[in-house]
């Protein structure tokens, strides 16, 4: 069990965007806890806290971004044993639909890597390219990030074309935060308001499937 008092200093370091301090702290974990404990009891809860803080207005997006990148580095470089954690997870990927601003996708991707998940990063794609790739890769989960309302509305076409392919569609991005019913309007299965919501939604999906 990870001591509760380790969370607060780790969170403070992440919010200060102090990468070196975070890496130094994480090196100490290698002697005191298992990689699984570090991720499940420290990294994920702290990233969730930070995501909640952003949702409530006490944390800025730049802090969320820096925290996710630092945690990705910790997980992939200092805790490599975690790469075995999700060997049974279904194929999944993340994509930016039509838009040219990829910050949201980058944060979600880093957050999922930091939490021990593995997924493909498709980058920016058009509707047709995304549908084709999802089917070709036999994905079970596709995370779609958008910034602009038109791109969010184009997800409806993705949903329509993926109907019958047994793909779980999780969406996120500014339009969905400003319109809480939009994800249903475009035929998605779930919507994440923060990057760490993606962890919860994927775990819920995996739990329901198992």
């Amino acid at each position, binding site marked *: 069990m990870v001591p509760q008092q380790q969370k607060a200093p780790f969170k403070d370091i992440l*919010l200060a*965007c102090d990468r070196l301090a975070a890496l130094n702290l994480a090196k100490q974990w290698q002697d005191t806890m298992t990689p699984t404990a570090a991720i499940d009891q420290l990294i994920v809860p702290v990233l969730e806290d930070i995501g909640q803080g*952003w949702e409530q*207005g006490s*944390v*800025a*997006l*730049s*802090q969320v*971004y*820096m925290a996710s990148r630092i945690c990705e580095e910790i997980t992939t470089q200092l805790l490599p044993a975690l790469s075995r954690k999700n060997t049974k997870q279904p194929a999944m990927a993340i994509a930016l639909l*039509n*838009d*040219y*601003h*990829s*910050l949201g996708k*980058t944060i979600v991707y880093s957050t999922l890597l930091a939490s021990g998940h593995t997924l493909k990063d498709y980058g920016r794609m058009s509707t047709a390219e995304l549908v084709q790739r999802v089917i070709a890769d036999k994905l079970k989960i596709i995370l779609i990030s958008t910034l*602009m*309302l*038109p*791109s969010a*509305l184009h997800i409806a076409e993705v949903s329509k074309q993926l109907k019958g392919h047994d793909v779980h569609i999780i969406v996120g991005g*500014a*339009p969905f935060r*400003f*319109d809480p*019913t*939009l994800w249903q*309007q475009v035929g998605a299965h779930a919507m994440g308001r923060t990057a760490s919501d993606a962890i919860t939604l994927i775990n819920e999906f995996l739990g329901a499937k198992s």
Partner: protein
Amino acid sequence: MTTAMTSMQRVLTTLGHQEPDRVPFFLLLSIHGAKELGLSIEDYFSKAENIVQGQLRLRAKYNDDCLYTFFHAPLEVEAFGGEVIFSADGPPNSGRPIITTPTDIHDLTAPKVEKTRCLQKVLQATRQLKAEVDDEVPIIGVVMSPFSLPVMQMGFASYIDLQYEQPDLLEKLLQVNMQFCIDWANAQLSAGATAICYFDPLASPTITPREMYLKTGFMTACQTLAKINGPTATHMASGRCLAIVDDLVSTGTAAVGTSVLEDLTEVKSACAGKLSILGNLNGVEMQHWSEEQAELAVKEAISKAGKGGGFILSDNHGEIPWQVPDNILLAISTAVHQWGRYPLRHS
């Protein structure tokens, strides 16, 4: 007050924190002008005359209180040599960043307004609109803040990295952008713009922590706004503003465009007498509102922020999406004219 004011009188009165004849409202419509003229968005922005006709038709239709010479956000990146990518159903995007590595900042220079064709189109539209309306209607020009423009110049993630890891290059970038911003704002004012909307979403605590903002965007805003020869409104483009209201006042701005994420009552209380408020109808939800929902949203906003002036009803982003239907924009207009008359009946 019962005598009808001109839009200019109405806006100036509310900016002076007094109650005009009714709550002024800005429908910040840019790409909707293309619909009015039956043009594609790309064709619409190809000629200044289209923007003039589009803005005049939109105001005649919706009877709002400003003309808006904002073309699109990537215009300024285009001025720096960047690419604008048009789409059929939304605002243009900026393409590949012009700063591909932070060291490119060493060679970055501000474009000359008088030699940049895309900027001259905006100035031409501004001059023509001014000739049409003289001082009856405020003409709102737009600049991207020097602190927020880098999101399009180098990409969002790279810009955040720069803020935290290379403060010297950040300073250099802000200096180049500041000179351009001042020149660009003053050129629009000289062409006939009444005021400048200073889009600064990065200033919002939604995007940047206040501690970082005070060291960067705040200092930049203080220096920039001091050299702009006219009134400015700082717009958060959907971001929150409450935590930095007093900082914004210190920058010398006259108004703030606030977010639907914040309660207008709280924003009004924080800004009262110091800063006028522009906002905060939800433009994203607007695309599926009923006319009744539009009326309710207008009534609620006016009841929370209208009393005592210092309030201009608007959307919360600074641009109304293409997908918002005309009947909803008309319903908003009707509701403001019905429920926005001073003295307010339902605050």
